[in-house]
């Protein structure tokens, strides 16, 4: 059951968020989590022995669920947007504090 693996992948990402202290690694963890989630979304639309939902002539009927595919498209793009902002933030953090390690960041939040 590959759906198990997709959920597991999501939790690998969450494990990364829990254990990593490097900002870039956290962004990667976020991406892994989103990847797992996206795979899970697609998998909810899978139907055994069904075809891709594109109408080709003389070959109608018995398609997989197209809605999760449409949704995952949106989810991926949103993930892209978030990652872009996250990377830019990471760059600004590096520029400001000279490090990507969370433990070495000083001056925010500790008053």
């Amino acid at each position, binding site marked *: 059951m590959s759906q198990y693996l997709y959920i597991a992948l999501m939790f690998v990402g969450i494990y990364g968020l829990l254990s990593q202290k490097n900002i870039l690694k956290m962004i990667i963890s976020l991406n892994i989590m989103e990847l797992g989630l996206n795979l899970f979304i697609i998998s909810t639309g899978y139907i055994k022995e069904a075809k891709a939902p594109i109408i080709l002539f003389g070959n109608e009927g018995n398609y997989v669920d197209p809605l999760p595919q449409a949704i995952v498209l949106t989810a991926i793009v949103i993930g892209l947007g978030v990652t872009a902002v996250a990377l830019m933030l990471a760059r600004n953090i590096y520029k400001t504090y000279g490090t990507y390690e969370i433990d070495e960041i000083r001056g925010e*939040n500790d008053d």
Partner: protein
Amino acid sequence: MINPVLLIAIPLLAAFISVFIQKLSWVLLFGVSIFTAISGFFLQKGMFMIGGWKPPFGINLMIDDYSFIIIIVINLLFFLTLLSGMWELKKNKTILMVILAGINGLVMTGDLFNLFVFLEIITISGYILAASSDKYYSVFKYLVLGTLGSSLYLFGIMVLYGTLGTLNMADISQQFPNVSGSVKIISLTFVFAGLGVEAKLLPFNAWVKGIYGNTTPLTGPLFSTVFATGAIAVFGRIFGQILVPDSTLIFAFIALGLITFIFAETSAMASKKLRELLTFSSIGQAGLIITMFMIGGFYAALIQLINNAFAKTILFSYATKAYKSNGDDTINNMSGLFRKNVMMGFGFTVATLSLIGLPLFFGFYAKINMLQSAFALNMWIPALIILGSIIEGIYYIRLLVKLWNPGEEGQESSELAQSQFVIKNGFSLSLIAVLIGIIFVVSGIIPDFLTENIAKAADSLSDAATYLSTVLGGI
């Protein structure tokens, strides 16, 4: 009557146009904001299909009395925020227009996935605006938690899709009671956690301190009123009407709301900086309002939501302005600051007293309604609400006394000990403060003129049957 989709389309159109006509972007921004603020009152009610596809197949916007009142409130708040943060707009004008569209869509949409999209629009815009404080690590934290939260939410609704084969809110709310317990617990906890991040419930809200505590005159009122109101309103819609939790899990949710309220109020009491104090107060209020939604006191929850939103507009605007003008917002250094700007002081005081729930102000009406609906459930919830209110009252009164009366301890209060602080660019804020202050006082004495529509909104939230028939039955 105005088609509600215009409240999303026109701000977005303006946002896209503003990219290549940057000179006029502030005209567009204020024009759009005024348009939405006014047209909120003339909004057509009912169900609106996008693209002409009937629900549950297409996406629909739902304007019942509940979203109607929230739309009015949010658009007014947005306009007030613009006035307060007039000098901070800079390059953020386009993003602000997108936020306006996003928050309107968030409240109006009748589709769970579409809600996710709008949620992402406003959170990403939120990250960007928050970054204007130069506290990049705090923003990063917000980003990680926000992304995690929306992923959890997405997981929850996809589990629901995998079970029910639909994403439409009305359709789901119809079928949800018959879903098996194991799917219910998964989807409810994940959606709760996901929305909890934005609604600032306690274990999920670690980002709030860094973001709210470092706000500017623009982002302060924007986050604490517009975003918070939108997020909590969505929370109320989802858990009050669509995914109504059953007896055991709802207890956990209520407990979380109350814990948020009381814990955050104690934290606020321990805060020495004005913005931090207001931050924790916001969290506490969010916990309180969510508790009210959870126990079914929709009317009380809505009143308090509106009360909190308008009060926080003044409080955050003032606090952020004070910080902006002086580079410091330690309460002890601000003693007697209100003596320099009495109008703002008046608005601030009235807003605060209303927030605590003292009589003569609108908040009192909210408080008695909250107690009334809490007592309908059991005796402990009102006791805890009262405990939190006492703590809240103490630190706010401490603040007010400090800000009104300059003077050393043990000496007669006098102008000599007044703070060196000044408030720059305070005219628009004075205006807002006096206006909201007067509204608070008048509606505190005669609440009826505000509450009629709120009562209808609360009814429409508890009346799921009408919602269903409007969405699924009406074409």
